């Protein structure tokens, strides 16, 4: 990316900073990222999608260690990326941080943490959002 207006990132702040998803009030299914329409209830769900904050706790479904990164992530490689299934049943893609890369496993319990994701260079905007870290490690710290 590059050359984008900041509005593109600003409008996603609630989702990326606080994991705000949507819940269909017809069938109670939860979605993240937010959806305008529930794929199961469709027209019945119009106007009935309400915001809901997700717990940020979940388990790793699958993961990879990226050695060849996109340009903006060059300083970070190697880094881990995973599909995480949250307690609410929805899945998100995120980096896994604060742990030895060799220790990451499918099924590992993780929790969301607020981090810097990328930036537009020395003079540009900094973009923040969620990354996930192992639950055990966090408890060890206390």
């Amino acid at each position, binding site marked *: 990316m590059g050359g984008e207006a900041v509005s593109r990132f600003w409008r996603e702040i609630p989702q990326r900073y606080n994991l705000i998803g949507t819940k269909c009030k017809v069938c109670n299914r939860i979605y993240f990222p937010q959806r305008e329409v529930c794929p199961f209830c469709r027209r019945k769900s119009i106007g009935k999608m309400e915001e809901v904050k997700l717990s940020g706790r979940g388990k790793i479904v699958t993961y990879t260690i990226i050695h060849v990164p996109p*340009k903006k992530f060059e300083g970070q490689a190697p880094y881990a990326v995973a599909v995480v299934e949250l307690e609410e049943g929805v899945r998100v893609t995120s980096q896994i941080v604060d742990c030895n890369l060799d220790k990451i496993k499918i099924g590992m319990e993780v929790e969301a943490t607020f981090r810097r994701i990328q930036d537009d260079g020395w003079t540009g905007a900094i973009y923040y959002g969620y990354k996930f870290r192992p639950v055990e490690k966090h408890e060890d710290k206390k």
Partner: protein
Amino acid sequence: MREVAIIGVGLTKFGELWDKSFRQLITEAGTKAILDAGIRGSEIDALYVGSMSPGRFIGQEHVGALVADSSGLTVMHIPATRIESACASGGMALRHAYIAVAAGIHDIVIVGGVEKMTDVVGSEATNILAMAADQEWEAFFGVTFPALYAMIARRHMYEYGTTREQLAMVAVKNHENALLNPNAQFHRKITVEDVINSPPVATPLNLLDCSPISDGAAALVLCPLEKAKEYTDKIVKIAGSGQATDSLALHGREDICTFMSTVRASREAYKQAGIQPKDVDVAEVHDCFTIAEILAIEDLGFVKKGEGGKAVEEGLTARDGEIPVNPSGGLKAKGHPVGATGVAQVAEIVLQLRGEAEKRQIPDARIGLAHNIGGSGASCTVHILEAV
């Protein structure tokens, strides 16, 4: 609905073709297809071209008109349409040209596919390819395209016991097949050890698990089946065509190890053709990464879910196997100029069914299948061809 035949194919060499431009490549492929079909330019009713991202690769959009212009068709003012569906742009262009001919809107239609990828540096190509993923919810967080397939591979290994060696065997087979394809990007035999020892890209996938960055183009000529005999004795018809979608992001799916788009598109194509997976004599499938070929042979119904790795190991998909897969060398070794890929796959199947695939000919091939994927499985086209 009319039946549709493919009466001409044209291919450029695939590879890092620094001396060839976007317009030279597609014009070369198109011209070869027209000469192969034996049609005149004045007979062409319409043109469809598949290209994923000329806007980012060469800073040029509006390539439908560009291709008509560079091919010398502007004076006829024929309709020219560019189709984009990430790496399935080529298969999608064929699908829509097929619909136009089957519906009776057009008679003679050219289908092109083209990508010029080496006019940008490697890291920029990585960024551009990641646009096939979900920008806001995958790529934003640093996910690359190989990383998505790597996560599929990891889960497939976890659920079904697929091994690192079995992944490597896909690349070894396809490199061996490419030795017999003069248009292939790589003419280099590799071993399982070479793949396993190549540099990591996104674990468990290494450099030799990945298809390369390529330049290239391919083209086909379609016409109604009833008119095909005016042009050729070796008639190949489109017996089935299927197209399907799935969630854009990998995390949007319940089953990470199944491409439902492949399952749906192939079932639609099999049904139309009136055949079963076991009736397929030769297949070109979308092996953008080694794991993708394993997923493809499972989701196309050639083997049961989870048995793809074992099937490759046992030689089921080798050139002399039960269902030869990617005799051209596949995306892995023939090269993967993304927009050209889906069209080139069908061109290979046509050559196989005509008995013109030279040293890589599969004996007595009558029914062939081409499987083209966009993104991490969000789009798929499947075409079944039959020698008439």
